[in-house]
């Protein structure tokens, strides 16, 4: 009995010592948004889905997909979940689109038509991030929703007998119907955004690397692949072909770490 009392007192003192006020460490309460980011960088578009944007060859015409270079710029917020998981929400203004070179027979020559379409979108994305190792590297997976605001197109025609190249700039979409012999005998112009779906959505897969500058100031390098699931063009026009957005984006962001909330401990 005495022994039992001794052990209880001994461990009781030990425990009390281990939880003395000087050693007490409560988890610091996080803010709902603990990081804010501004970022910008290049957008590389590799749209796909039809013979005017994909690599295509049928023995008569040959289409070569070219990299469409645009930009993206935006704001990001980070909501902490655990020590290694947070949720990144971004709003961004960006250029997507397609660029391609179509080579076809024209009379006794061959003609090259270089087309470039720029789609301007405002996008919102949400992607949980998992911080690896020393929390400098993070991987993220999520989704985005985008709304198109404008479109610009350019076509440059070049052929040996056609004299100087013809440069055609417009707002809208040209679709050509190419006959089996490579001739364009029917084509249509759909002005403005009439032929476009207003919204696009898709998946995000990214990896980021953070560099600490000062106590609350960081740089973030971000590489992200965004894969559109929605047809860029609507089904109101029979001329519209399938095309989906696919962009690989790089950004450099400045991230401001918000200070943690101060712990409020009431000592009774």
């Amino acid at each position, binding site marked *: 009995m005495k022994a039992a009392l001794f052990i209880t007192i001994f461990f009781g003192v030990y425990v009390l010592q281990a939880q003395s006020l000087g050693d007490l460490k409560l988890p610091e309460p996080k803010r709902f948004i603990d990081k804010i980011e501004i970022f910008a960088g290049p957008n590389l578009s590799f749209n796909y889905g039809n013979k005017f944007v994909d690599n295509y060859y049928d023995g008569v015409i040959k289409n070569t997909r070219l990299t469409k270079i645009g930009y993206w710029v935006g704001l990001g917020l980070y909501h902490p979940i655990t020590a290694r998981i947070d949720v990144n929400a971004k709003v961004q203004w960006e250029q997507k689109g397609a660029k391609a070179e179509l080579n076809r027979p*024209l*009379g*006794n020559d061959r*003609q090259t038509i270089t087309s470039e379409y720029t789609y301007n979108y405002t996008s919102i994305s949400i992607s949980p991030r998992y911080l690896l190792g020393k929390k400098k590297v993070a991987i993220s997976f999520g989704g985005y929703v985008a709304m198109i605001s404008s479109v610009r197109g350019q*076509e440059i*025609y070049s*052929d040996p*007998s*056609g*004299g100087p190249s*013809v*440069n*055609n700039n*417009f707002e809208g979409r*040209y679709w*050509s119907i190419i006959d089996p012999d490579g*001739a*364009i*005998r*029917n*084509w*249509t*112009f*759909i*002005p*403005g955004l*009439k032929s476009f779906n207003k919204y696009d959505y898709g998946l995000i897969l990214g990896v980021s690397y953070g560099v600490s500058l000062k106590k609350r100031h960081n740089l973030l390098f971000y590489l992200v692949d965004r894969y559109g699931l929605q047809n860029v063009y609507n089904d*109101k*026009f029979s*001329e519209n072909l399938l095309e989906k957005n696919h962009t690989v984006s790089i950004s450099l962001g400045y991230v401001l770490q918000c200070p943690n909330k101060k712990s409020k401990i009431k000592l009774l």
Partner: protein
Amino acid sequence: MKKLMKLGATICFAVSVLHSFSQTVTKSYNGTVAGAVCPEIGIQYEVSLPTGFSGCQITWTVINGEKQSQSGNTVYIKWNDTPGAKAKLKATFSNCGSGNEANNGKVSNEFEELILSVKNQSWGSYGNSVNVDYCTKGQVLITMPRMFVQGTGGIGQPAQTEVAYAWTLPSGWKEVGTGRTGFFGTPVNFITIEPIDCSKPANVTVFGTLASGYSG
């Protein structure tokens, strides 16, 4: 009489108003042969866009030719080198938007002209050799039958159009007067040639040609 004049003025006004609001396909220049167009070169056409048409979907259709390029509401067409064929081009308007529904389905005038082509056209009968004394310096007149473009010169057809003649002289021969040798063209169907030193057997070739060298 007054009524008749009023009626005439009304008709004129109506026609001019209708014309100003119609969608017309026009050629950028007038060729040398009215109602005809050359093949295999880019010819510019334009469709007018009256008020209420700027937001329309425009579908172009070309027959006996193909699009070479386009810029705005202008388009360059390369017509096929097909003898006797008609060049046809039209624009159809649709999906003109709210407030302009009345313009949906309207079609421009169909631009139509004869394609001037002498591709694979046969010559009329001609002698295929001329005898000259060997190694003399005598002149030789070569005359071909005149070649005309199919579909020209008849009733309701473009003015009769004769081809130009492209000659190739063999080495050792030149054109009398101009001294031209080798390949050159003439607007007439005959040339006179002479040997530079002395005459030797050789072949002279000729083909009928239009704007950019299409032969018969």
